[in-house]
């Protein structure tokens, strides 16, 4: 069983603050592994525990994303590679999925299963996993809560639907996109940390994976950001201090009635 886990390094969104001129201040913002991707990694490791598997983690990003890959190796992932090239920078989801697909075809085409996080906490598009599946022309299940079993040429998963859960069978090879869950993601052991320290993580450029760089980056992405702005608040609101609980309660009940119309 050969598994690929897609991992993204993201800014810790809780750390991002606004400056006075409505720009985002990312100073001192730490980079973390995207939460869903940690669950994707844990899911892969549980398959490995249960039935054995070779797990490769793959990430596209700046050089510093290597630390995210070392972290998943310390958790028990076998190998990792980083896709990093200035031509990849500012790729949208469509372009990112093309790069990932090409890298997988060139370097790890013998995989059985690709596990992605359902969404990334910075962009929250949830599009890269599905787009990757389509570039590779293989099965896709999104919103996966857990895996029931894997046998021969198929996988059975539980998918969170709008207001129920479905049990789905998918042909392998497949891409599954994992949600965060209530189960624990394992902590690295000391031995894992040592292995991660020594691990060789190859860095592949567009050329290394025979990728035509015209199809990635800002130029190669079908979408672009025209403007970014701060969500607007309610300008004419008022704040009321110094009321007793009884006064506040009456005021609230009055206002609710008034606003309800």
């Amino acid at each position, binding site marked *: 069983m050969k598994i690929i886990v897609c991992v993204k390094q993201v800014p810790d969104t809780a750390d991002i603050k606004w400056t006075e001129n409505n720009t985002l201040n990312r100073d001192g913002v730490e980079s973390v592994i995207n939460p869903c991707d940690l669950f994707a990694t844990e899911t892969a490791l549980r398959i490995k525990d249960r039935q054995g598997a070779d797990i490769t983690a793959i990430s596209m990003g700046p050089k510093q994303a290597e630390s995210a890959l070392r972290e998943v190796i310390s958790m028990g992932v076998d190998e990792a590679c980083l896709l990093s090239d200035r031509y990849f920078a500012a790729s949208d989801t*469509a372009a990112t999925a093309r790069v990932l697909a090409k890298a997988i075809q060139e370097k790890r085409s013998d995989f059985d299963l690709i596990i992605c996080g359902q969404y990334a906490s910075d962009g929250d598009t*949830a599009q890269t996993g599905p*787009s990757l599946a389509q570039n590779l022309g293989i099965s896709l299940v999104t919103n996966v809560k857990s895996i029931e079993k894997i046998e021969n040429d198929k996988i059975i998963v539980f998918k969170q639907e709008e207001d129920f859960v*479905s049990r789905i069978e998918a042909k392998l090879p497949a891409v599954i996109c994992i949600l965060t869950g209530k189960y624990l993601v394992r902590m690295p052991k000391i031995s894992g940390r040592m292995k991660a320290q020594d691990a060789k993580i190859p860095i592949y450029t567009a050329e290394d994976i025979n990728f035509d760089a015209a199809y990635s980056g800002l130029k190669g992405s079908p979408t672009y950001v025209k403007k970014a702005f701060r969500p607007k*608040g309610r300008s004419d*609101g008022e704040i009321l201090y110094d*009321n007793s609980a009884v006064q506040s309660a009456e005021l609230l009940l009055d206002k609710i009635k008034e606003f309800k119309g």
Partner: protein
Amino acid sequence: MDKFKVTVFCETAWDDSVAPVSYELTAKASDLVKNIENSEVQVLIVGKRMNYDDIIESFSNYGADKVIIVNDDIFENYSANLYRKAISEILKKEKPNVVFFGATVKGRELAPLVATTLNTGLTADCTELDIVDGKLEATRPTFGGKLNATILCKTLPQMATVRAGVFRVPENPVKKDTKVNFDWVNVHDEEKFTKILELIPEYADDDNDLSKAEIIYAGGRGMKSKENFNRLFELARLTGGVVGASRGAVDAGFADSSIQIGQTGKTIHAKVYVAFGISGLAQHMAGINSCDKIISVNKDSNAPIMKLSDIGIVGDAEEIIKQMVRSLKNK
């Protein structure tokens, strides 16, 4: 000049009912093209063989110029790759300028598959839409709701998934004369990469439907305990409202995640939203911005939600809720 076409994917549930977002998007699409000469709003339905008359009627009411139906019993049970192929084939033929999907579980799975098949761009989970000089301007929250980004697409069709409940269907719809086209796509059983084995219902509380509520009382971490939080249900019962929660309250175990409001929960559009002990971080606000009125109760006058509310009341949530319940019972 070519027709300016906007296609809306009609999402149907397992019981053949239409997801409300499909109607919302049809109404929005017809509003967006109203000043564009020679335009057409199309609805694309993929499904089993059945009677679609009522569904067509509803789409006519919401402004569809044309309904395209691809009906074959192979589509009875959803399989992503089959639906992808059917939708993509029709879009290749129709060549619309803009395509909308609801940002539902199904829409967010299908739209990127279709966009990749058509080699075009897709903007996820939009909360505002505009068409300017033929260009779709799709705005969405990003960075956990801290930033809104307006995204454009260089290729055709320009695609977007749009959150449910952001746009509303008109209260007095005007019926259109809608054309109906039955179409056919060549798909095979072997192209079913996935199949549904079983549907497992989850406990759904019909009395607490956030999507339709006019008054919503939501509690956050500042509710302090589950017992306090549960008083909100009493308040809701007494005033005809429903109860929601922030992620803080869900994480603290006061409330079930099914009633979480925000970026990773439900989007609501109540007439009155009352927040108790919620700080008002962007991820939470992303779910409530389309409410008519926001009232917040917080002991901290500097909590972000205070500035984002129509009325902010500085005070203790527990005490105020107790007084509200007492007052209502005395009346």
